[in-house]
């Protein structure tokens, strides 16, 4: 069977599974809708957390980015896993003990202030929408490449599915769909990785395989990759190129950002006991680590396979995937030396980086681009990093069903994360904004209705982001983590570990962290992008890593301002004492 038919079948089966689960697990109360009535088994919650966490970025983009960055890409591997240690040790058990519905709930109660609650709601909505935009783009890419459906239609189908189980099932529906989605996505990630690991190194475990010898030779894979990279004018694959301080700050910003992401934290509100929250974080990290330790192996394999299958190959004989992705607009080839062969090396191939395709075909049948060639280097290939994971099975010439499986897995990753985000957005609107601030008199049924309406509106906005992707998506990802690290994490942490922190301190902390981090990112990403080099950065910290700096600003401001105002009321001291007990 051809790959497209198989993809239809796999995607169809997985989608019906999600719908079936949604019908089975409808939400009947607000507690069901917000936190699945605290009835989720810790292992199931671990899987759901893993699916919630691992987005289109983890599944589709991460291995591709590492493939091009080599060792510098480690910031994502450590940054997006290390945060779970912070979450498990510093936040999850205490917030579960607190036992309310949302993250702003904790902030509003602990700091006895609606203003603090509202600042938290604002940060939360901004962070979550930033994230969703990326998910919907992922859904669009998969649909257009593998099913040859228009991106618009693909996004609408994806929206329909999420709408169905998020609006109907709330947290309960989302949780059990996420468990299924985790199984789909991890299977889809591991199968091609194992196949390719066996093909290249004869070692069935990718985690070991990429440190192994290439089968039939005595050369280690990474050794060969270092040499290939150097030959083509790149840095060694296994060496750092970024400064240590920048790598340190980016890793830290991603870790503390992860620990401050509302859609992840809220997952730990769904388990029955405090000890379950700890255990659940452990299971979540095991399930995440399964993908995150495989990813760097996939990156290394894909890099070798990619270079070997296109380098010095005549375009007319180029592999099918190369031309397919060229059709989608994520690969371009400009024959600078007019020899008809594909030459890949370091540097941007095209002036202006991104290709502008004309309608004409070139001498060898390639899509002509109107960009001028970049004559500072001899690289002829533009390749979007996002395609490495999706194209990997084709590059390695794996059977069609593996290609179909990867498509279904990528959709599972994107949809599960989108649903989790939609839920925290709707909960923060219906619960924190309506019930706790604007309309305290609504009853539970009305609140549930508001939650469903908010979820529906959020899905439509997210879908619009997917159909008309704003150009700034890539830039704002730094924002999401930077803000989570510099606003939400510190107030949660201090709220638990420092009783004396009062509302004035918390608000001053959040606002100063927000302002400092946001201005730094806006300055370098939007106002003066041409200055965005290490020569101009404060202490050599890039905007991606500045959230960690902002976190210290938050801590400093919170502690300082706190001293000038009176201590929190007695019931807050009692609350903190209470959540510190198991």
């Amino acid at each position, binding site marked *: 069977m051809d790959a497209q038919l198989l993809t239809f079948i796999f995607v169809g089966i997985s989608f019906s599974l999600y719908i079936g689960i949604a019908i089975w697990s409808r939400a009947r109360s607000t507690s069901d809708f917000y936190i699945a009535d605290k009835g989720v088994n810790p292992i199931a919650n671990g899987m759901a957390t893993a699916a919630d966490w691992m987005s289109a970025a983890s599944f589709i983009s991460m291995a591709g980015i*590492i493939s091009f960055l080599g*060792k510098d890409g*480690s910031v994502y*591997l*450590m940054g997006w*896993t*290390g945060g*779970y*240690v*912070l979450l*498990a*040790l*510093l936040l999850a*058990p205490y917030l579960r003990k607190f036992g309310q519905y949302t993250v702003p709930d904790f902030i509003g109660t602990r700091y006895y202030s609606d203003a603090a609650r509202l600042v938290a709601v604002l940060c939360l909505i901004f962070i979550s929408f930033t994230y969703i935009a990326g998910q919907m783009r992922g859904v669009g890419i998969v649909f257009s490449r593998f099913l040859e459906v228009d991106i618009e239609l693909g996004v609408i189908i994806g929206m329909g599915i999420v709408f169905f189980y998020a609006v109907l099932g709330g947290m309960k529906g989302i949780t059990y769909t996420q468990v299924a989605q985790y199984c789909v996505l991890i299977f889809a990630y591991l199968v091609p990785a194992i196949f390719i690991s066996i093909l290249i190194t004869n070692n069935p475990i990718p*985690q*070991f395989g*990429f*440190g*192994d*010898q290439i089968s039939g030779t005595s050369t*280690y*894979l*990474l*050794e060969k990759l270092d040499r290939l990279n150097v030959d083509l004018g790149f840095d060694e694959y*296994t*060496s*750092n190129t970024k400064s*240590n301080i920048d*790598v*340190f700050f980016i*890793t*830290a910003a991603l*870790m503390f950002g992860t620990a401050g992401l509302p859609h992840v934290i809220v997952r730990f509100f769904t388990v029955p006991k405090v*000890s379950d929250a*700890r*255990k659940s*974080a*452990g299971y979540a*990290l*095991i399930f995440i*680590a399964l993908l*995150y*330790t495989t990813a*760097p192996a996939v990156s290394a394999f894909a890099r070798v396979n990619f270079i070997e299958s296109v380098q010095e190959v005549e375009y007319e004989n180029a592999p099918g995937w190369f031309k397919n992705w060229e059709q989608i607009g994520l690969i371009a080839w400009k024959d600078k030396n007019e020899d008809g062969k594909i030459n890949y090396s370091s540097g941007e191939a095209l002036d202006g980086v991104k290709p502008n395709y004309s309608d004409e075909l070139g001498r060898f049948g390639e899509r002509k681009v109107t960009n001028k060639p970049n004559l500072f280097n001899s690289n002829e290939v533009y390749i979007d990093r996002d395609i490495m994971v999706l194209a990997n099975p084709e590059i390695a010439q794996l059977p069609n069903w593996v290609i179909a499986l990867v498509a279904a897995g990528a959709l599972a990753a994107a949809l599960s994360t989108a649903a989790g985000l939609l839920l925290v957005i709707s909960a923060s609107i219906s619960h924190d904004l309506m019930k706790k601030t604007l309309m305290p008199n609504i009853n539970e049924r009305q609140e549930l209705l508001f939650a469903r309406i908010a979820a529906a509106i959020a899905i439509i906005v997210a879908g619009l982001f997917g159909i008309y992707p704003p150009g700034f998506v890539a830039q704002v990802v730094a924002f999401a983590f930077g803000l989570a690290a510099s606003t939400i994490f510190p107030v949660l942490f201090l709220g638990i570990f420092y009783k004396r922190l009062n509302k004035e301190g918390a608000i001053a902390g959040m606002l100063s962290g927000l302002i400092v981090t946001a201005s730094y990112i806006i300055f370098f990403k939007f106002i003066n992008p041409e200055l965005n080099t290490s020569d101009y950065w404060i202490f050599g910290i890039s905007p991606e890593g500045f959230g960690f700096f902002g976190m210290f600003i938050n801590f400093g401001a919170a502690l300082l301002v706190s001293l000038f105002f009176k201590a929190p009321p007695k019931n807050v001291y009692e609350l903190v004492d209470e959540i*510190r*007990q*198991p």
Partner: protein
Amino acid sequence: MNYWRANLLILSILLSIWFLVSFGFGIIWSEKLDAIMIGGFKLGFWFAQQGSIYVFVILIFVYVFLMNRLDKKYKSKKED
């Protein structure tokens, strides 16, 4: 030692290890460790892309184990 102090002690020990394997071995001393090879891996590279993640998982389960033990001890004390 009361429950909260014991908890803080456990936290500081585990978080020191967390810092050491990721920021220490994976970043600060990574290039020095790269002189050591395990199979085809440079050690610093391995910590940055594999080792630190394994240690993170172990740390959380050690934490779960220690806290469950502490919870039990504390509960039986309270009932006395």
